[in-house]
């Protein structure tokens, strides 16, 4: 073969190869490689469906908060003690005896950021849907923005400076992002809540089927809470509270008629206008189960994991409005639960408490060691070693009288309620020195009336005493065991006073020690560092730009 032939031949090869490849490309090029599973949604198909958008938002809600946070957080404060808080680890935090690697810190941090991711994914993608009305999408965005703000607010509450995530971030961004100064976080929270409030319906505008969704009122109330927690924004608190109290376009709110019903009466619990935001549950289908660790053992609890402290019990005033230590209060240390704020009985189970199941005969709860009559169940008695209470007190608040199997309750758990708004307003006014009879009659008085106080000395505007203390005590009693106390003692900067030394229980102990009041747990609070939690060390190892809070550097 000569050179030319060879050349021709190679040319043929190439030409033929080229034709071949082209033919193959034609044949195979038709084969789609963008395949999506037919039995689950992917990003390619998900957002086009209205139902999916709704479902995703529901999923954002499902990450809003949790029952154990609502109920056990008070065990980090002087309101309660949790003796075997395996999962929540609130006992370790309350004791001050923890390492920065405590899993609760990591879990808490991770929980809020998981909630933020869900909200951000929703916000980043919702507009891919073109079939939902724009107004609906705007409302939904408002709900998601509230929840994103809620998580940032909680992060700021525990850690101060935290990374602010205004949209979904990538893995690499997560490794680099820095903590924003607390002020910036706050501003983000406030701005987001304003934006949410601007588009959200108020509580009367939602259809019945949407009850439980976030309202304009909820956004304003959370804004008030965020401002209140600052301590130096009281005038702003007043402004926001007044928007809620005076402008019906922001919602129609009222206290429920009965304090106990608010938590335990299914109808009131779910329908009262007092509830501004509540975790939504449905009997049997979506439930929470903390009661099994709260109520007296004889009622069917497996153990007690939240025991109210003597310190909390002591702060409930007398029916006559006086504190137990005030002269003329009528308080009897040997009959300590008589003539007390009726909210004590609605919240805490004490020795010889009359447990009302609703329907069946009352059961007397004997807690004092050795006091149970023969033939009755002595499991409720206080013992340093038993499954029962560690303080001599059990919990009544949150009790579900329908007594569902396994205590898995379908009652809602309130996150923001009208009473809190009234208390915020009262506190802001008091701290501004503007607590007047008019303000009192709009705030503390209706709360006490609803609680069951009847004596004028308890209901009327007090002419003496430390108004700040009165308001704070009112707040502690009204919101007891709902998770507010740990926030309050931190923002009031009194934690080093109330979280140092022993948390006490009822007077069943050695009379020579602490006047016989049980020592439930030794606590220590270092104001130099404990006002903020440590950034989880694992997190800092993975993102070296994250700085550590004071006192936790290693």
């Amino acid at each position, binding site marked *: 073969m000569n050179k030319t032939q060879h050349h021709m031949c190679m040319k043929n090869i190439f030409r033929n190869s080229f034709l071949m490849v082209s033919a193959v490309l034609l044949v195979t090029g038709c084969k789609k*490689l963008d395949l999506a599973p037919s039995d689950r949604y*992917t990003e390619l198909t998900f957002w086009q469906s209205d139902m999916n958008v*709704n479902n995703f938002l*529901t999923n954002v809600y499902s990450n809003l908060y949790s029952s154990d946070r609502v109920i056990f957080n008070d065990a980090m404060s002087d309101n309660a003690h949790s003796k075997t808080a395996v999962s929540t680890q609130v006992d370790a935090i309350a004791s001050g005896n923890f390492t920065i690697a405590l899993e609760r810190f990591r879990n808490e941090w991770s929980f809020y950021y998981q909630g933020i991711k869900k909200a951000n994914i929703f916000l980043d993608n919702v507009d891919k849907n073109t079939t939902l009305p724009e107004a609906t999408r705007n409302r939904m965005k408002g709900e998601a923005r509230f929840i994103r703000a809620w998580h940032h607010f909680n992060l700021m509450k525990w850690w101060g400076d935290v990374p602010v995530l205004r949209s979904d971030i990538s893995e690499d961004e997560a490794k680099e992002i820095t903590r924003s100064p607390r002020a910036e976080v706050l501003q983000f929270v406030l701005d987001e809540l304003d934006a949410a409030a601007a588009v959200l319906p108020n509580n009367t505008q939602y259809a019945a089927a*949407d009850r439980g969704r976030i309202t304009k009122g909820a956004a304003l109330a959370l804004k008030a809470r965020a401002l209140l927690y600052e301590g130096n924004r009281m005038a702003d608190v007043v402004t926001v509270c007044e928007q809620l109290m005076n402008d019906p376009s922001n919602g129609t709110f009222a206290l429920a008629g009965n304090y106990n019903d608010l938590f335990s009466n299914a109808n009131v619990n779910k329908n009262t206008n007092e509830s501004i935001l509540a975790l*939504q549950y449905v009997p049997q*289908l979506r439930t929470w189960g903390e009661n099994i660790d709260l109520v007296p053992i004889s009622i069917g609890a497996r153990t007690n994991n939240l025991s109210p402290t003597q310190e909390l019990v002591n702060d409930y005033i007398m029916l006559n409005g006086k504190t137990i230590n005030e002269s003329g209060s009528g308080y009897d240390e040997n009959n300590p639960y008589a003539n007390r704020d009726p909210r004590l009985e609605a919240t805490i189970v004490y020795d010889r408490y009359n447990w009302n199941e609703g329907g069946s005969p009352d059961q007397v709860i004997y807690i004092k060691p050795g006091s149970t009559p023969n033939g009755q169940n002595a499991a409720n008695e206080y013992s340093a070693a038993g499954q029962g209470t560690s303080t001599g007190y059990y919990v009544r608040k949150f009790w579900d009288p329908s007594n569902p199997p396994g205590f898995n309750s379908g009652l809602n758990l309130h996150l923001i309620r009208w009473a809190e708004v009234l208390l915020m307003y009262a506190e802001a006014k008091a701290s501004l020195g503007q607590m007047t009879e008019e303000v009192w009659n709009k705030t503390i008085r209706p709360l006490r009336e609803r609680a069951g106080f009847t004596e004028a000395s308890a209901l009327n505007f007090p002419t003496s005493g430390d108004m700040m203390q009165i308001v704070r005590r009112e707040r502690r009693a009204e919101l007891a065991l709902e998770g507010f106390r740990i926030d309050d003692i931190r923002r009031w900067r009194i934690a080093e006073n109330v979280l140092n030394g022993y948390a006490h229980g009822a007077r069943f102990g050695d009379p020579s020690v602490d006047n016989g009041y049980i020592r439930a747990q030794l606590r220590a609070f270092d104001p130099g560092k404990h006002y903020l939690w440590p950034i989880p060390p694992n997190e800092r190892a993975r993102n070296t730009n994250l700085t550590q809070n004071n006192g936790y550097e290693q």
Partner: protein
Amino acid sequence: MKNAMQRSSLRLRGYALTGACAMYLLLLNVYPLQAQLAYSAPVKKYNYFQEKDYRITLQVKNEKLQSILDKIEKKSRFVFVYSNDEINTDQKVTFSVKDKELTDALAELLTPLRINYEMMKDKIILRPANKPNTPLAAGSSGAATTIEGAATAQQRADTLITGRVVDDKGLGLGNISVQLKGTAIGTTTNGEGNFTLRIPDDRKNGVLVVSSVGYIQQEVSITGSQLLAVTLVPDSKDLGEVVVVGYGTQRRISVTGAVDAVGRQAVEGRPVVNVSQALQGQSPNLIIQQNNFEPGQGMNINIRGLGTLGSNTPLVVIDGIPGGDLNLLNPNDIESVSVLKDAGTAAIYGSRSANGVILVTTRKGKKNAKPSVTYNGIYGIQSPRVTYEPVHAWENAYYKNESLANSGLPPAFTPEQIQEFARRGDGDWRVDNIVKDAAQQTHNISVTGGGANNTYMLSVGMMEQKNNFVGDYGYKRYNIRLNHSYDIGKLKLNTIMAYTKVDNTDHSFSAGTLLVDASRVPLYYSFRDSAGNYLTNPVSAQFNPKAILENGGYRKYDNDEIFGNITAEYQVFKDLKIRGVFGGTVRANQMRGRRMQLNFLPGGVYGDDREVRNENYKQLFTNVQLLAEYDKKIGDHDIKVLVGGTNESSKQQWSRMAFRFADPQLGIPTSESVFDPNNFGPDGTNADNGGRPATIETSLNSLLGRLAYSYNDKYFIEGNFRYDGSSNFLKANRWGFFPSVAAAWRFSEEMFMSYVKDYIGDFKLRASYGVLGNQNVDAYQYQTFFVNQQNAYAFGGNPATGAAFDLGNPNLTWEKAATFNVGIDASLLNRRLEVSFDYFDKTTRDILFTREDIPDLFGVGGSLPDYNVAKVRNRGWEIRASYNLPGKLISQTFSVNLADNLNELLQLTYGANERTVRKEEFELLRRVGHPITVYYGYKRDGYFQTPDDINKYPKFANSTVVPGDIKFSDRNGDGVINDQDKYILGNPFPRYTFGFTYTAAIKGFDVVLFIQGVGKRDAMIRGEQVEPFHFGYGGTMYRHQTDYWTPTNPDAKYPRLAEAGSASNTNNYRTGSDLYLFDASYVRLKNVQIGYTLPTAISSKAGIKKARLYLTGQNLVTLTKLSFLDPEITEFDNRTSFNAGANSARAYFLPVFYGFGLDLTF
């Protein structure tokens, strides 16, 4: 030898040619015979010409022979002389020669037409090839042809030589070349192996060269005897041998990469139940392991060990179509298996080649062969190899008392009770009583043959392996296959249709649990009472395994597979072929399961949910290929080009339905029946499918190519590539390019090596490098899923459905394995000894694993997707040697292979260099610098023997030890045993795997021995087989545990007896130490065959061409240090993944097979 090589290339690749006789081999088979017998002699034109080596170029397409002859006449000035009655000059012919000698050109033109020619001066005389003046041996089919092509000595008086060529088993061999040495005079044998050759008288003392592809060439002197008998011995390593490679075949000589060919001998006569089992030990570093031996179980297949943390399963390609299932193939249908090990050979499979490729080619018929009917059958009995034995009841009671006493507890049995046990004897609750001997049989009938234009191979086979468990369970497989080819001019069609049915009846429970319940009950108890009731006892209080096996229900698998492949090959012109392939598989599997309620005495119940279940799986797999092959030989330069494009698409669907509380007799729903809400997972996926979706679709588009160049069969260089686009990745990461280059040098061909070549043998050096891919990723994994969650939240008092997301990683991409291979092939001692050695070094990067460097604030908690983060290096070597020892009385072959591989984790993930996972007592560890997965725990350092020992020697904090308890090695010497003292205890993956085959043939007898084994493997085994009275769950001791520590047996194998919960037991048995580590190396006599082939003289009377009877046995002898568990069993899948269980000891027993077989050919 050179001729042989060229012949093979001719035969299979249609090369340009120089050896005439090879030409005949090729063409005789291809073209039809059109002969007429009447003779008359019209004489054609005359022309004078004297040049002997006249050269001719001619190209005609579909022209009458007449016109071609005319053209040659014009060009050459020869005239053709022939009879029109004998020679059909109207037949149309396509013919092309370029610059060829006239004689060669004529041979090329006329031989296919079965026309002989003679040149006489200026004439060329044409005659039909099988004219009676060419004598044929008796019984000849007429297919044998005398070739007298060369223009030498034709006019002299001839001597007629006849003879027969047979293989080592005495069977006649067709198509064998018989050539008079030093001349071009030769012929080929017919289908029965007979040949006739007319040679010049003056050469009648010459030498005949008998040769064929795949056989060792023989030279036979022509002596006085004119009936020659020649026996050809197969030569698997013939340099002319053809090896199946990706999308084509290659001459063995031109192979540049690491490819092993396993032939039919791997399945012949062996009672193997599937192809995977047949391949074990046949190719070095083809590592096959099992989790248990229950019929129908799959196997772990690895080529060259572990290179990735994900799947290490090689790609299986059956008859050119990827994605086949070796377990569904009839082993008897296999012609050859090629194992592609390195980048040089595997890169053409691109993204799925990193784990190697197994290419299976099934048998085909031959052209111009009369139908040949073959029957192969094996029948035999499998015996379960029970490897452990509980102690007698009375002994057990005695040991239990000792264990209790050692733990400070009162005895459980009084001396009277123990005496009573001894007097009464043992109960029958032992594992031996839930297994039995069971039959296994295979029967295959095949018909092969072909006409002038077609070939066929029809085979029908059945295999039945009864289950060794009591009850009536077993696995049956039926195979039908039709491989058919047909030539239509330049178009060759090949169709393959195969159908497989699997019919497997399994018990309704887990084999592991049945075995453990049957084996850890002491012999105080029996399965049934005298009234026949099934019993339970305090150790197995819930279930009676014998009852479950005998009456507890079943799982019936009914699986079908249809495989089809249609290939059309078109010869565009001489050097270029285009091939289109459409192939695919349909699989439809069904499982019906039922659990029957069984009530035991005194308590316990099985199957009280009376579940009835139906599971379905369906897959459609299609593969379209369009390929072009260009082969060109120019002088000593040989160029081959292959380019092509393919698509592979698969769609799989699962479904499952079950209801509970069915009618106890009929298994149909009643009013109390409940539909099982867990049929599908909560997120709409099939719960039985590991949470993956119930529908999976994938598609792969590819371009591929190969360019091979060789010079003078001495230097070879080859490049392969594949460019793959997969639906498993996002568009931007979808396409991957996987190239390889390889080169080989037959250095013994160099001039300066002629001494070596002549006196020592052939040598070839090979090297290859390439980047292979691993598409080791689930479909859709790059996409974020949204899955519905019930009751995620509530609005308006009603529960609301949420849509959770399952984050994908859009950046997912291929794993890439950079693979280097170097090898040497040597052929020594006149090619009786063949040796190959390969060394490989493969580094796989971008291996999928989770990340540990992403902060939680990313927001998905612990459910991060997989990322391309890990890196593994895997190195090893393999050696193969075979030796043929022909002899007058006995001919023998020896072949051996040995291999090793060892991987090293170079990088685990971002943010972490190690990870451990606890497996009951011990741990599995992944740590950079060590093999992918290793066992992790404490090392023992003898026993505490004295109180002094106890004071001095380090212990766990707070542990109380006594003499007879284990001392653990204080690795860091800090005086206390804790986590810091753990060692890497062992590597669970086999090393130094080997196989050895010996065959011998003595007259009609033949012997095959096959030995397989593993030189090094560590196995951590826990449970009742190691710990006496295991953890309180087990109630027995086994014979092998009785060597325990006592003051008088201070060097015992096991520590002192003590109860679970005691300080001793906690120290000794709850601590993951090398107490649980065992040496699982073994040597196993896998197969022995002793056969006898009836002399043809006898068998032919019954119309049988060949009859062979043989005895065959499998797994006959095992040498191992691991006495109480089968050393072949592993708890791992083929990636030594963290998901492995820790209870490999509870595996179905190895069946030992004894049987006989019969091969008949008609």
